[in-house]
């Protein structure tokens, strides 16, 4: 059920552009650089002025100083040195995309994304580029063309025309380019199992050529099995350390900023447990879903990740047994306590399948730092108390 929280795998700009190019979309020439020296070499190879662009999975890098023009290879090297290591909204810059500078005449916005409500791909296009798209939507909605595509029938030329005419593109040559580009973007969207393909800005150069100056692509995690090439684009270093450790163990874990470690079975129940911890006056340290199986080893792995978080002061287990059997979870807790030193108190709430047996196993083990509670609310309260 990881899909509820992690809606997909974000790609870096340069990775998104790689997919764009494969489907014929026009992008600027560029090279990846991970050191200032590589940035200099890239700038030399590209010639003329370049743009040094921080590769991060968040927006707003321009305002944060993560995008700089460099007129020479020396300047590119200096810019790269300044940007590498920079932290942008909590993301450390470790990769740069060095791209030939474009002569920009106008900036547009084009995206295709998944409209959950309509259950259809949705195009959005506006000539009011270069600003935040939310702002266009809020202040000038008639400037934003929104267009659904039927997922069975796919993209047709008329969709392209609806976008260009809808946005009032007067120049026929420009229209043709945008219509082709929209068709190619839809191809990226469907053939790569993307949930978002966004070009912001889509620029018209002084020569009248369209160019995808940025690329924001998110790919459905559930579909990565059929895209080995895209799966290989994942940057393991982009995720927080704990999440990486959890991922390696196959645990669904999202780091938060509190002191109560939370484990449960089922995304909804875990979310509800986080809420109860907050209601009880605490702050959850993580989201951790043991999933439908809840085998003992999964419990051990999850506890290892959570207890290693130095912020965690107490841990709460909220298990409503269904397919998950409470006795199996209890065995996992016992195994974990034998295998690793867990300093934090563990509050346990069991209900449903084999809850009695689970509780019995724990009580027979006579552990000093395990606290059974009858309801999830009481368990949350107890954990907050113990963390206090």
């Amino acid at each position, binding site marked *: *059920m990881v*899909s*509820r*929280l*992690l*809606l*997909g795998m*974000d790609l870096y700009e340069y990775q998104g552009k790689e997919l764009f190019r494969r489907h014929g979309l026009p992008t600027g020439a560029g090279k990846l650089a991970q050191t200032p020296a590589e940035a200099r070499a890239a700038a030399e190879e590209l010639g003329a002025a370049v743009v040094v662009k921080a590769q991060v999975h968040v*927006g707003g890098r321009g305002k944060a100083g993560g995008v700089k023009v460099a007129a020479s290879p020396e300047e590119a090297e200096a810019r790269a040195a300044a940007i590498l290591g920079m932290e942008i909204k909590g993301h450390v810059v470790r990769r740069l995309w060095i791209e030939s500078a474009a002569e920009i005449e106008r900036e547009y916005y084009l*995206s295709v*994304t*998944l*409209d*959950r*409500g309509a*259950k*259809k*791909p*949705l195009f*959005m296009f506006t000539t009011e580029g270069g600003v*935040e*798209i*939310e702002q266009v*939507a809020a202040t000038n909605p008639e400037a934003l063309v*929104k267009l659904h595509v*039927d*997922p*069975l029938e796919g993209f047709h030329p008329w969709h392209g025309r609806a976008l260009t005419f809808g946005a009032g593109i007067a120049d026929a040559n420009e229209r043709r380019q945008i219509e082709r580009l929209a068709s190619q973007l839809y191809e990226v969207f469907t053939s790569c*199992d993307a*949930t*978002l393909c*966004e070009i912001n800005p889509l620029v018209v150069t002084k020569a009248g050529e369209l160019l995808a100056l940025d690329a924001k692509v*998110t790919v*459905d995690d*559930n*579909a990565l*099995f*059929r895209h080995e090439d895209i799966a290989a684009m994942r940057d393991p270093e982009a995720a927080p350390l704990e999440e990486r450790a959890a991922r390696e163990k196959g645990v669904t874990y*999202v780091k938060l900023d509190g002191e109560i470690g939370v484990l449960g079975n*089922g*995304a*909804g*129940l875990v*979310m*509800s447990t*986080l*809420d*109860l*911890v*907050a*209601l009880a006056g605490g*702050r959850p340290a993580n989201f951790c879903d043991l999933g*439908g199986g809840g085998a003992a080893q999964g419990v051990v792995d999850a506890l290892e990740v959570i207890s290693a978080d130095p912020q965690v002061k107490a841990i709460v287990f909220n298990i*409503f*047994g*269904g*397919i*998950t059997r409470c006795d199996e979870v209890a065995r996992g807790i016992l195994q974990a306590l034998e295998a690793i030193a867990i300093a934090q108190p563990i509050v346990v709430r069991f209900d449903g*399948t084999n809850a009695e047996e689970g509780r019995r196993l724990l009580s027979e083990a006579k552990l000093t730092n395990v606290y059974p509670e009858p309801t*999830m609310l009481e368990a949350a309260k107890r954990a907050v108390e113990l963390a206090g």
Partner: protein
Amino acid sequence: MAIIVDKSTRLVVQNLTGREGSFHALRNRAYGTQVVAGAAPGHGGEDVEGIPVFNTVSEAVRETGANTAATFVPARFAADALYEAIDAGLETIVCITEGIPVHEMLRLYQYARDRGVTLIGPNCPGVISPGKANVGIIPAEIFAQGSVGLVSRSGTLTYQIGYELAQLGLGNTTVIGIGGDAVVGSSFIDILSRFEADPETEIVVMVGEIGGDEEERAAQFVAEEMTKPVFAYIAGFTAPPGKTMGHAGAIISGSAGTAQAKKEALEARGIEVGTTPTEVAQLVAKSV
């Protein structure tokens, strides 16, 4: 008669010969569900504790009169299995499988709709009409027969709320886990309209969570189309904003997709939202 599944349900289990399929099919049968067939390519002619297995769903339908499928097919083969089930003419398909690519679901959603098939799930626990039939992986013992309709995007949270209701002496007409994926076959509104039309359902509880705007849409539907009282619970007030779908996401739905936004949308339409699972059950009990 209840909605989605009841005594008239004749179930074919897709991938009956798999571990999960056989385990739950037998549990469903033990509960009283008419499990008439299994489908598993290459296993035609076998049986699982007396349930005959067919190579194709069509054959199962032809030979046993199956009208409902439960799908336990692994994610990468599940879309194909769902097309097979739709084309076999089943009325209702309950897809338990987790991890189906969302683009497959976009097409399947449209395909099932165009053919008038009720698709529940995927990534859902199933549907139970207590005392009548249980299709899927819902632990039946939690739920009692009664007059409360329960619909939820979450699995274990559904059990929790059903359990809370049972503690207060309240039972259910039908309990439906619609699934937690971004695109599922049936939305809150689809189920709410069925409950509204169901003479046995008197009160409805909907259990939502962060993401999308189904709860907001449902709030409007309840206000405009429903006469029966509806209570809600929303999970995820403290969930991390996490990765949403970039900027585009919020603009599409016109909603932030947060628990708070959903709660406000529901309350603005006069739907009471419980702060905890216990509280929502108490609200229902009070209104009876």
